């Protein structure tokens, strides 16, 4: 009798979950189906199957939409900014924590300020304009790196506290330089926090729309969300193309998510808890 009740409860749970799942699946399904329809079929939004699979939509989008260009741009910007965040962030975090003196603490609180303050996008724009960097990769890379650095510095700094100093001492005795100590000895030990930072920064930067909008909105060098937005502006009547463009943009992210799910979820959760 008791077992039975438990069983009923379980089935009930699964039914509710399946119902909720529909809310998540339907928009995605509509997008995928729509991307294979003709313009007329796609304009009438529904979950009907396309008469014939229009692979041509994808060809058209890839040829005219600059999607590949957007990908390259996003990749350049994300990789460069993440590299700056991890390399500079770990260096600073380690030095701050290991020194533990007034200079170190001062620097620590200077970065803590960055966690609570919000970016001032308008004066950032003016600064970039003044520096003659408007519309360049480097401007977006440095601004996005600057936004993410405080979190990286603070998390690296608190993580390194848990690593025994004896490791440093042994490394120094063996004749390590400061750089070797940081990048060849400590960073490999700090893998978990490095992965967390890597994921938070990469996802945030890849999806960021506001910074490219202010700093390189119509440029050839702009990122994928901006490219898609501009593409939509040109093709807002051709939903078959819009859907195809969305699928192309979403697909690699979804595949990456499914492969690295454990790390992504843990990383983003840790980010919220510590941030």
């Amino acid at each position, binding site marked *: 009798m008791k077992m039975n009740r438990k069983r009923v409860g379980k089935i009930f*749970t699964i039914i509710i*979950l399946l119902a909720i*799942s529909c*809310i*998540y699946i339907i*928009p995605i399904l*509509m*997008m995928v189906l729509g991307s294979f329809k003709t313009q007329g079929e796609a*304009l009438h*939004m529904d*979950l009907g199957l396309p008469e014939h699979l229009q692979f041509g939509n994808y060809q058209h989008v890839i040829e005219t939409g600059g999607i590949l260009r957007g990908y390259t741009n996003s990749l350049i910007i994300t990789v460069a900014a993440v590299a*700056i965040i991890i390399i*500079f962030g770990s*260096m*600073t975090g380690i*030095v701050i924590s290991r*020194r533990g003196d007034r*200079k170190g603490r001062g*620097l620590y609180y200077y*970065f803590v300020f*960055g966690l*609570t*303050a*919000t970016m*001032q996008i*308008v*004066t*950032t724009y*003016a*600064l970039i*304009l003044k520096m003659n960097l408007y519309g360049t990769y480097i401007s977006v890379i*440095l*601004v996005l*790196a*600057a*936004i993410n*650095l*405080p979190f990286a510095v603070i998390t690296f700094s608190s993580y390194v506290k848990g690593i025994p100093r004896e490791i440093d001492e042994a490394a*120094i005795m063996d004749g390590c330089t400061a750089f070797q*100590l940081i990048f060849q000895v400590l960073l490999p030990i700090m893998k978990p926090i490095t992965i967390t930072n890597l994921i938070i920064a990469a996802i945030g930067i890849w*999806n960021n*729309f*506001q910074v490219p909008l*202010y700093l390189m909105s119509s440029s050839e060098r702009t990122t*994928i*969300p901006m490219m*898609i*937005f501009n593409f939509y502006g040109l093709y807002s009547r051709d939903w078959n193309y*819009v859907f195809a463009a969305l699928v192309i*943009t*979403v697909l690699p*992210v*979804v595949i990456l998510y*499914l492969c690295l799910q454990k790390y*992504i*979820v843990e990383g*983003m*959760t840790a980010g*919220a*808890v510590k941030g």
Partner: protein
Amino acid sequence: MIFINKKQLSKIYPIWLGLPAGLVYTIFFIVPIVTALFYSFTDWNMDRFDSPKFVGMRNIMNLFQDEVFLRSVWNTVLFAFSTTILKTVVGLLLALLVVQKFRGNSIFRTLFYLPCVLSCMIVGLLFTGILKQDGLINNFLLALGREDLVRDWLGSYGTAMFWIIIIEVWMWAGFTMFLFISGLQAIPREYYESAQIDGASSWMQFRKITLPLLAPSFTVVVTFNITGGLKVFDLVYSLTGGGPGFDTQVLSTYTYRAFGMGLLGKSSASALILSVFIVAVTFALNKFLRSKEVDV
């Protein structure tokens, strides 16, 4: 091992190793904040880019007399608070459902979390297709024979704001769910076992054990979602662009609009007000929620 005196410390961990990060952060994050503090009090626009004129509190006074601005403040607050409440409730509900042991529960977790890794821009465009005049929802209503309910969902204030809030919840409820899952898993099983022996109902267990012990998760969830909600930009920009009219304008889109018109002084003043607002709300909330944690 004896080398931990001050001189050697500085030699092994020279402070200049913090210089690259310090420089990038100072130039591209701190300098704009400091200059915004000044430029918010100037008449500064694209025509007068190099010679802003100091006007004192005028930008800020003007903003608070601007109806569109006041509307944006209201919308921002409405958005931040209602999405936080909904994300907390829905996230907790999802967490309680998927934390139960049955085969395939990880599939649901994966699915509910999926929108979190997508760009808001993509999600915005996707839902434009669902909500527009000849979109999915209206077609569905027509199929049900409810023509009376068909409308341009993003075309009027009430429904537009409603849908922006719902879509934000759709995107981030899964994230909240995971924050709660880790909180739920940290509650010792024995508490429930002894409660069951005492004959406590499931609802009693939930109220007396689960909710109080989840207090730290609530702090994280609420603070994270409120600050995120106050900063909202992408979703509003891609779904309505602040329209119809200026109805769904939030502070970030208001800032962008002033920026687009070349009114840099007004724009930085509006961005600054948002920042001050965020800091104030975060501190107040943190204080309030932490005090709750100690109580239980």
